[in-house]
């Protein structure tokens, strides 16, 4: 994705927004220009802190899920018995919308960041486990055998085949789950916190009725997601050079 294309897309969206705002002509939908001004005013006025807190929560949730789900997915994909017993468990749990656990997680983990990070973790965990497992299952047996013939045992197979083979899957899983992660972040920040973009948006929109500030929060959330997409793309170009070689 090129930066110029993203800017053009943003410009196109702003134009559509401007036209809609002019047609609606109500305070609940301010013009993009108005929001743009408020966005920069609000940055110094606490929005930056909310952004930082949200960024921390979502990044921590993602890191935690990669660190736990990627090895789990690898182990399940590389071991027949594990696959046989654990895959059905995953299929039973995966389709449950994890948002329903918000009250449960809050009850057990309290109102701090741990609960919010855990919620993001719960959602990403399954997506990453399944993708990494499929990647490990899809490794051609010939590739494994040729490594074994070079003397590789189980540990070397993990180091030289399974791990590098799963990297693209981890990044794909991350990219696919950024949208969901940000949505869950919003929901988790509606409860028992005074920081985070979710809180900021809800507070400005539903308590203060400060619509331009609310949209500034929405824009910040969109930037948060965009930044994460760019981050994953960057990692992919750094770690998966072979995918871009022509």
């Amino acid at each position, binding site marked *: 994705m090129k930066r110029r294309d993203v800017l053009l897309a943003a410009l196109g969206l702003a134009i559509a927004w401007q036209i809609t705002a002019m047609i609606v002509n109500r305070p609940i939908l301010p013009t993009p220009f108005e929001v743009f001004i408020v966005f920069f005013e609000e940055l110094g006025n606490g929005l930056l802190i909310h952004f930082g807190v949200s960024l921390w929560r979502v990044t921590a949730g993602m890191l935690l899920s990669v660190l736990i789900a990627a090895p789990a997915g690898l182990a399940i994909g590389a071991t027949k018995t594990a696959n046989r017993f654990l895959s059905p468990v995953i299929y039973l749990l995966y389709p449950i919308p994890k948002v329903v656990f918000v009250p449960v997680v809050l009850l057990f983990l309290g109102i701090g960041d741990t609960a919010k990070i855990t919620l993001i973790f719960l959602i990403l965990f399954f997506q990453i486990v399944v993708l990494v497992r499929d990647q490990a299952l899809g490794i051609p047996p010939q590739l494994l*055998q*040729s490594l074994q013939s070079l003397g590789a045992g189980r540990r070397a197979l993990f180091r030289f085949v399974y791990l590098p083979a799963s990297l693209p899957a981890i990044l794909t899983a991350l990219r696919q789950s950024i949208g969901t992660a940000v949505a869950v972040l919003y929901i988790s920040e509606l409860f028992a916190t005074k920081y985070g973009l979710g809180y900021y948006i809800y507070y400005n929109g539903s308590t203060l009725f400060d619509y331009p500030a609310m949209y500034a929060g929405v824009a910040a959330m969109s930037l948060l997601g965009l930044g994460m997409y760019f981050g994953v793309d960057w990692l992919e170009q750094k770690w998966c050079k072979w995918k871009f070689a022509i």
Partner: protein
Amino acid sequence: MIEINSLTFAHPHAAPLFENFSLTIFRGETWAILGPSGCGKTTLLYLLAGLRQPTLGEIKIDDEPLSRPRPTSGLILQDYGLLPWATVHENVALGLRVRNFYGADGKHTPENYLPRENVSHWQERLGLAEVAEKFPAQLSGGQRQRTAIARTLVLEPDLLLMDEPFSSLDALTREDLQNLTIGLCAEKNLTLVIVTHSIEEAATLGRKILLLGDAPNRQAKIFENPNAGKSKYKTSQEYHEMCGTLLKEMQHETA
């Protein structure tokens, strides 16, 4: 020396491919294993590589029973043998990196192994220096197989096992790599066992040709082809007669 003693092998829930099958291969010989699909030729190669275990009987290499891949056997497959995410250089060095990973434990790595990473000799010898930083997907089929061969030779093997290594290459590249293989085996006194479904390839490379037929294989059917690999052999009457004999035998086997 490779001794296959009274080998019986069957895949799980399948009829045996080999039954009480015996064969001896001496150091420095070049063998081609020829046969139709499903006759068990690849399985035999995997058994020799230590990647499969006999159901009954045993395989010994240099008097050692084979229970896992030997550090000094090199296996080269038709495809998929290279890591797609590693450059040519990294692929050539892969065997050494695996050895460095384990250290000289005598199990994965020979006991007298000294850690090293330099592969430039074989990389240059096989004409890969210029593509060293490329990925397998960027190479031609011939370059890919050269990479696989270099990776094996870096480990200084005494036995080369090849599973249809040249069958997806064009005729010129195939001949080029066949000559290279013959030359390297002579130079390093390597034992070569190559599996092929091509009669011409068997007659070109194998001084001894093992013909397998419909499973189960019991008796080793061996053809002596002592001049294989010598220059101009492929244009000789002897070569054409050998191809004719093999074709007739194969038709007879599967009839």
